[in-house]
């Protein structure tokens, strides 16, 4: 779910309102609402604007009941309705390149991509930012749980997760509190669910202080014909709630509706943090998969943000049917819960199923086999006699408490074209270029810079984090962190697999959100390509400040435009994603942070190319090439930040046609075996890529800088520039002719820059310096343990 402004604040703003009704035995009914048209309702406290409230009254032709008001307030919230982002996100559809692979796209729980005639994969990234700041462990854990259920709802078995994370300054006390909890939460949930974690990001920047970003990606696999729909089709079919009991989790602003008893019971009414139960989710997964395979499910929807309200209205709206729900049948953790609380609860580990009456017993039997609760709570009803779509009617102990057109909640929420304005400081910021900053002047300076860079928080070794994640479970992990992309075997017989990467660079996006988004796409695309996989589809998580700030809205619009244009140029569709607004402290928004996930397909995972140089049997080993071109591009770079705490200028140029050519070379070279290693060049430049390629297997390298980069500060530029479109590869001897021929064919510039070294475990930059790998390793690995224990 998206972050909301602090949920506790709505409680503070509670008016002293004498409640005339309330209590589970005396709910506000439709009948009562019709008779008491002028009763004051706390819609503003629930986040609804005057005109929105009036619209609701218009739709219903009366005031909403308490339960209905709760439902509209959450479904029309930014998080559920996408009211500020919708007008922009449309571009993903409008600019979508044709794809015969896409079986489900935007609007579904997750995009689905066919990878051969029988198999498809589904993947999506989502945010759980704000909950993870409030309660790092549970916030992050339930973030994983939520995205896994989206994947499950498509009919897929979840097979891997990834976790792009962003925190404040590495040495800030909030980071010391939040990071260990977030990492433990992601590990705790994913490990217990048996999903390998195959990649992610750990980024530090003061911009995220107070607003850490916890995004989670999940990927799943399904037979093409097992694809599930969310439609509540077929009047007479039964609505089944499966999974955990419903409690007062994450009720948030809706607690405002708590009535007479509020004063005395205020404590119990507090919106409570959602606690994850991965064991129940594991059982839920197995039960759902068994139901799919036995063809017992007509429609299915996960319960996430907005809980039952969202699931009931979306499934009914998708089919145009109505629904009749007996709310008292919902199994409760707390018997005293009121109807609006049950409807708003965000209790985890629940799914909503639509099943045929004659199959209900079989469904309940499967649930029982797996030890999960399943309860029939309602039934699908036909459209109205008038021909209008059906209505959602919910009773609570024989009182009609909800009677609404489902689409008015699920699809027809408010849509705003919010004002946008380029941030006032952008021109000055862009003029303050990092290319003019003082540079290391001597070989010794250069070496010291390298050691400082490889140990800096963003570039250092992240095994402190990734060792807390199971990467092996399921036995199909072919590549995982610290590789450029996770590679998962999908079919054991043919070796068919997928590669996934997630990337984002908030600094680049701050300097230029349009190109920043394209750069994130390019980097993710390249990370997939270096493994030898062919990129085929995109998901994204857009983390931004408040949409009510025109500068943020402009950044958002630019980023979406950049990503949509980029995907069109690359010919790969955006299949889904998530928007997280209000990542902001006071007036200060985070750097705009589009996080882009790219999915690739690899015909045979045995062809995958790892990042690490291979150990040569003796002496000189493989030839090392740099692919792509290096320019003097230091603005927004890691070097500018680490050395000068500088952010300014414009980010590196992005040329997606060149990225595409590079990807083609890499895929073909991998397939025919020209590559022993390939590593994307991005944060920290060539220097960082070389260090990582050397340290992976403890293999040294001797590098000779090209002529035009050998004098003055040019060696520095060559090593630390962050020009896009580059990769460093190693090519076994005998393959170089064919390989460079391939590069020439695709128009990809290549530069031979050295050889791997079987003798000396050192990184040697000729004419500059030589560093033993041990010294590099020490600098690279010491940082995280020193910070986090």
């Amino acid at each position, binding site marked *: 779910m998206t972050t909301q402004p602090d949920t506790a604040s709505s409680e503070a703003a509670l008016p002293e309102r004498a409640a005339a009704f309330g209590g589970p035995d005396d709910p506000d009914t439709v009948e009562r609402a019709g008779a008491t048209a002028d009763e004051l309702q706390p819609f503003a406290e629930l986040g609804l604007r005057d005109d929105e409230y009036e619209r609701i009254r218009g739709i219903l032709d009366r005031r909403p009941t308490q339960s209905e008001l709760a439902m509209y307030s959450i479904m029309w919230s930014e998080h559920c309705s996408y009211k500020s982002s919708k007008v922009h996100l449309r571009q993903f559809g409008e600019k979508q390149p044709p794809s015969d692979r896409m079986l489900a796209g935007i609007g579904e729980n997750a995009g689905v991509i066919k990878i051969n005639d029988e198999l498809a994969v589904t993947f999506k990234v989502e945010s759980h930012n704000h909950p993870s700041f409030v309660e790092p462990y549970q916030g992050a854990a339930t973030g994983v749980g939520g995205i896994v259920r989206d994947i499950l709802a498509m009919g897929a078995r979840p097979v891997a997760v990834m976790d792009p994370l962003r925190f404040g300054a590495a040495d800030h006390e909030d980071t010391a509190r939040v990071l260990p909890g977030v990492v433990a939460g992601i590990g705790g949930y994913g490990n217990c669910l048996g999903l390998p974690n195959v990649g992610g990001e750990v980024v530090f920047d003061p911009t995220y202080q107070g607003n850490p970003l916890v995004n989670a990606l999940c990927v799943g696999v399904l037979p093409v014909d097992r694809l599930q729909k969310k439609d509540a089709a077929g009047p007479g079919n039964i609505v089944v709630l499966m999974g955990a009991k419903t409690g007062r989790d994450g009720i948030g602003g809706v607690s405002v509706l708590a009535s007479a008893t509020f004063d005395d019971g205020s404590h119990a009414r507090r919106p409570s943090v959602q606690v994850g139960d*991965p064991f129940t989710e594991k059982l839920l997964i197995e039960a759902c998969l068994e139901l799919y395979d036995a063809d017992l499910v007509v429609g299915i929807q996960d319960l996430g943000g907005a809980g039952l309200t969202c699931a009931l209205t979306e499934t009914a709206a998708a089919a145009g049917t109505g629904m009749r729900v007996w709310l008292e049948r919902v199994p409760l953790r707390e018997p005293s819960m009121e109807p609006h609380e049950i409807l708003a609860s965000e209790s985890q580990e629940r799914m909503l199923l639509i099943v045929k009456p004659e199959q209900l017993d079989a469904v309940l039997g499967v649930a029982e086999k797996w030890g999960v609760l399943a309860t029939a709570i309602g039934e699908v009803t036909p459209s109205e006699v008038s021909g209008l779509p059906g209505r959602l009617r919910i009773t609570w102990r024989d009182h009609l408490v909800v009677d609404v057109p489902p689409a008015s909640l699920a699809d027809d929420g408010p849509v705003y074209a919010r004002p946008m304005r380029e941030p006032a400081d952008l021109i000055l910021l862009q003029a303050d270029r990092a290319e003019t900053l003082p540079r290391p002047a001597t070989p010794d300076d250069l070496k010291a810079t390298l050691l400082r860079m490889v140990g800096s928080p963003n570039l250092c070794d992240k095994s402190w984090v990734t*060792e*807390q994640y199971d990467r*092996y*479970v*399921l*036995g199909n992990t072919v590549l995982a962190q610290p590789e450029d992309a996770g590679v998962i075997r999908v079919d054991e017989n043919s070796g068919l697999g997928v590669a996934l990467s997630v990337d984002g660079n908030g600094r680049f996006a701050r300097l230029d959100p349009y190109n920043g988004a394209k750069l994130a796409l390019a980097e993710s695309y390249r990370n997939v390509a270096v493994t030898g996989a062919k990129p085929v589809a995109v998901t994204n998580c857009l983390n931004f400040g408040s949409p009510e700030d025109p500068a943020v809205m402009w950044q958002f619009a630019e980023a979406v435009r950049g990503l949509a244009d980029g995907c069109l140029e690359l010919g790969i569709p955006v299949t889904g994603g998530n928007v997280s607004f209000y990542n902001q402290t006071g007036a200060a928004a985070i750097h705009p942070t589009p996080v882009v996930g790219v999915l690739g397909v690899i015909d045979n995972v045995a062809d995958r190319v790892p990042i690490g140089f291979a150990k040569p049997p003796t002496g000189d080993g493989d030839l090392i090439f740099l692919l792509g071109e290096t320019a003097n591009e230091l603005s927004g770079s890691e070097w500018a930040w680490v050395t000068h705490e500088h952010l300014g200028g414009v980010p590196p140029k992005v040329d997606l046609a060149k990225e595409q050519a590079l990807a083609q070379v890499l895929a073909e070279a991998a397939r025919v075996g020209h590559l022993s290693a390939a590593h994307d060049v991005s944060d920290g430049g060539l220097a960082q890529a070389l260090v990582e390629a050397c340290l992976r297997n403890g293999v040294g390298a001797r590098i000779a800088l090209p002529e035009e980069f050998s004098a003055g500060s040019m060696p520095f530029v060559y090593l630390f520039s962050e020009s896009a479109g580059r990769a460093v590869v190693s090519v076994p001897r005998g393959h170089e002719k064919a390989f460079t021929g391939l590069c020439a064919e695709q128009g990809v510039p290549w530069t031979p820059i050295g050889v791997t070294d079987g003798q000396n475990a050192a990184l040697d930059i000729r004419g500059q310096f030589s560093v033993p790998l041990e010294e590099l390793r020490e600098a690279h690995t010491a940082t995280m343990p020193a910070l986090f224990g």
Partner: protein
Amino acid sequence: MSARVGVVTFPGSLDDGDAARAVRVSGGEAVRLWHGDRDLHGVDAVVLPGGFSYGDYLRTGAIARFAPVMESIVDGARAGLPVLGICNGFQILCEAHLLPGALTRNSHLHFRNRDQWLRVHASNTAWTNSFETDQEILVPLKSGEGRYVADQATLDELAANGRIVATYLRGNPNGSERDIAGVTNEAGNVVGLMPHPEHAIEALTGPSLDGLGFFTSILKHLAGASA
């Protein structure tokens, strides 16, 4: 006829499919067993796989021990049925008192997944006879509660009688007493192992092929027994 090796699935088992794959890759027939079913379906040996049975919320292995299938496994093990417990399986075997000691929270308090060097000491058990004594092997470790503890007398007894199956090499990853990674019962038919040999059976997906040895051992053992 190839040996039939049962792999138990508890609610929350995670590496059950991987253990079954390892059995198959080694040439055995993997037979899936269900926690609620007392019947062992005539298997020749049993693997209790890794995972988080019942969420492992109370104490690892504490609840799984009471599963119906465990009654038959305990009886079988006492009568000589070879049983290998991996990670959560090891924890269950300790809880079921088929193996001494207990597995507790890692001393650094973190879950840890890394490729771990081990030394195999006891090469005379049903599950380790393919190894040479003192052979060094590399297999993945992934656990949050892998710290083996037992009282001194028990530890001495294990050491004296060659019942320490494997120890951690090049750094103790979790604070285990005497670097213990695995132990066996007196008869040598029941083995508990914290690291995951089933994840070191293919070059593509594991750090080595060293894990295969545990599975080829049982096939050898069973072939010997039936010969």
